[in-house]
Structures are given as structure tokens and as C-alpha cells.
């Protein structure tokens, strides 16, 4: 006979109840008949099944079109904000030209998507807008932000990099070599936009290539930041300075599985 103290008995019974709860929480098991003898605590949430989607060439092209509209909306906001004055007046001129380019790009990729039997997509990528652009604009347009004018240029620069990276990234995903070439034909022009805006943000030939901030060691904005086109995330530093002198940094990433414009995605009113 095993002699147990009162304390050991309590510990054992506690462990038994805990393991019972764990098993109960595991729910149904394959091959086990549910005879309702095991109690389930709480209700398991009802999950909506994911739509049966496929990342096709058309989906990638529609996603690219959505980014073009994100860019158009960014420039529209920049121009309507009346922030691009004084030294930044030339950026207003650039913005108008870049907007025209983005409209042409959107028309071109939508035409390619339609050729593949898909519907064209003529609005911004809502997830890119909700996660990156809207929060960035909120920070930029805060009344206490003394850098709002240059910050809106920084946002445009980030959006151009995002677009260039997206086109570069889809080259590997597109199945048709002709579409790969079409994608980079547009992507290279987004890269040119980004290079020109980088020179506004960090001017001078000495800053064309990669440099870093002497105080923080962080990389400065550069027109030609690397040897090969990068697909890494994009850092956007904006907003009013915090007490320690730092500013808010947002991290932007190219569209992923949760932000692609699948066949069933329609423009939100």
C-alpha cells in the first residue's frame, strides 16, 4: 500500500483535473466516437471557411493595379494638402507626372488582367491603405508635426519603392515570361520615381548611394540604395519628434497572401 500525505493527495487530484481539462479542450479526435461522456468547457468558435483561392497571373496583375491606385491616392492627398510649397514646389510638378504614369500603369496591368479573363480592378488595395497609408497620413497630418511637408514626400517615396518591389517580386511568381517582362517594364519606372524622390529627401551626389545617419547609424534614404533591387521591407520615418528625438518608423511590406486582390475581391464603395 502506498502511503500518501494529505498534501500529496491534493496535488495528485489537482493534476488529474488539469489533465482532464486539457483532454476535454482538445475536442473531437479522429476515429473516436462522440458519446458525450467527455465534458467540453466553453464553446468553440464557429470558423468561416476560407474562400477557395488561387494565386494566378490575373490575381497578381490585379494586385499590381491596386497599388497603382494607392499611389494615385497618395499623390492626390499630397497635392490637395497644399503642403508642397516653397522648396517642395518642384515635388508638386513631379507628383502630377508620377500620377499620370501610375494611371497609365494601372490601365496597362488591368488590360493584361482582362486579357486573361479577369475583371479589372480600379481602386486602391484596401489592406495596404488600412495598414500602412492611412496610419501614415494620420501621423503626417497631425497638427503638431513640424515635418508634415517633407514627410508626405517620404510617404510618396515609400509607396514608389513598394510599387517597384511589388513588380520586381511578381516577376518570379508570374507563369508567363511575357507578363514577367511587362511587369518589370512598369516596375523599372516606379524605381525611377523612387530615385528622383530620394534625391529630394536626401539631395546631393554624395547621397545617391547608401549612407547612414551619423548619430543613429540607421541607413539614410538613397536613390540607389543597393547593388540589386531589394525586396526587403521599407522603413518610413515620419511624424513629430519624440522627447528623445526619435520619430515614428513604420514598416511597409509588399502585398502578401492576405492583401492580394483575388478574383472575388471587388472595390469597396
Amino acid at each position, binding site marked *: 500500500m502506498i502511503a500518501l500525505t494529505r498534501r500529496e493527495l491534493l496535488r495528485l487530484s489537482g493534476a488529474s483535473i488539469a489533465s482532464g481539462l486539457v483532454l476535454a479542450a482538445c475536442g473531437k479526435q479522429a476515429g473516436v466516437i462522440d458519446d458525450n461522456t467527455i465534458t467540453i468547457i466553453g464553446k468553440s468558435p464557429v470558423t468561416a471557411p476560407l474562400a477557395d483561392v488561387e494565386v494566378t497571373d490575373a490575381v497578381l496583375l490585379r494586385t499590381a493595379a491596386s497599388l497603382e491606385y494607392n499611389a494615385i491616392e497618395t499623390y492626390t492627398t499630397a497635392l490637395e494638402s497644399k503642403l508642397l510649397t516653397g522648396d517642395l514646389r518642384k515635388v508638386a*510638378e*513631379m507628383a502630377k*507626372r508620377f500620377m499620370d*504614369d501610375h494611371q497609365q500603369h494601372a490601365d496597362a496591368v488591368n488590360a493584361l488582367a482582362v486579357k486573361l479573363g479577369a475583371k479589372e480592378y480600379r481602386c486602391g488595395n484596401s489592406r495596404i491603405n488600412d495598414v500602412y497609408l492611412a496610419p501614415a497620413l494620420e501621423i503626417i497630418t497631425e497638427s503638431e508635426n513640424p515635418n508634415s511637408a517633407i514627410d508626405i514626400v517620404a510617404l510618396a517615396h515609400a509607396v514608389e519603392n513598394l510599387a*517597384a518591389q511589388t*513588380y*520586381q517580386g511578381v*516577376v*518570379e*511568381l*508570374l*507563369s508567363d*515570361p*511575357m507578363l*514577367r*517582362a511587362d*511587369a*518589370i*517594364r512598369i*516596375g*523599372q*519606372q516606379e*524605381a*525611377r*520615381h*523612387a*530615385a*528622383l524622390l530620394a*534625391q529630394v529627401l536626401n539631395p*546631393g*551626389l*554624395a547621397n*545617391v*548611394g547608401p549612407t547612414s545617419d551619423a548619430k543613429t547609424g540607421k541607413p539614410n534614404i538613397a*536613390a*540607389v540604395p*543597393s*547593388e*540589386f*533591387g531589394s*525586396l526587403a521591407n521599407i522603413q518610413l520615418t515620419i511624424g513629430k519628434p519624440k522627447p528623445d528625438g526619435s520619430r515614428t518608423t513604420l514598416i511597409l511590406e509588399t502585398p502578401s497572401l492576405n492583401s492580394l486582390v483575388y478574383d472575388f475581391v471587388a472595390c469597396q464603395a
Partner: protein
Amino acid sequence: MLSATDTKLLGFAQTLELTARDLYQFVVGRKSLSEDERQMLTQFHSHHVAYEQTLNGLLGKNSVSKRNDSLYTGFLQKLSETPNVWTALLQIENALVTTHTKSIESIESAKVSALIASIVTIEARHAAILATMTSTNLSLALDNSESVLVVS
């Protein structure tokens, strides 16, 4: 393993990058450049070295080790005259962008296409900056009317 088509196209791309490398090498040696100009062009030169070497690695025993002499001579003539340096370099970068993009239409491997695409986006940035050295006209920096380079 590269297909025969991809090997041929990458070999041509390597020839072009070798030519660009040598042309930049010539330009950075010019005394008329400012320090900042030299620094920037040295960087662009190093990029073309990287592209050539990457393609060399991909091609292995099928790699080419020679630039395209007729192309080199043609551009060298333009680069020899100081007022033409920036325009000629812009022309070279734009021609590389057009030619590499055209090759993507025929490259079979998606991974190889992605590599070429990563070169194209940087050469386009080179072109945009080079255009600003001669003009404030946005079209010069953004539009590319250069034709595809062919082997002569």
C-alpha cells in the same frame, strides 16, 4: 541547371555588363570629374562588376569573359568628349534596361528572370540619376526610348 535558351541569353547579358563595366572604368579615370561625381560613378561601376560576376557564377563553364568590342568602341567615342559623358552613360543604362527587359520575355527560368529584374530596377535608378546631371526635364529621367542592343 540552365536551359540552352537561358544560357544563351545570360551569356549575352554578361557580355553587355562586361562592356558597361569597362566603359565606367574608363569614365571614372577622367580628370574632369568632381570627387562626388567620381564617387557616384565608381559605385555604379561596382554594380556592373557585381552583375557581371553574378552572371558569371550562374553560367559556370558557359560564362563569357569578353565584352562586346563594337559596342564598347561606339560608346567610348561618345564618352571621350566631356560634354557627352552624362548623356552617353544615360544611353548605356537605358539600353541595358531595354535589353535585359526584352530578354526576360524569352528567359525560361522564373528565378533567372527575377535576378535580371533585380538588375533592371537598379539600372533604371542609375539612368534616372544620370539624366538629372544634364537636365531638369522629368521625361529624360523617366522615359526610355533606347532600342534593344543586338550582337553585331
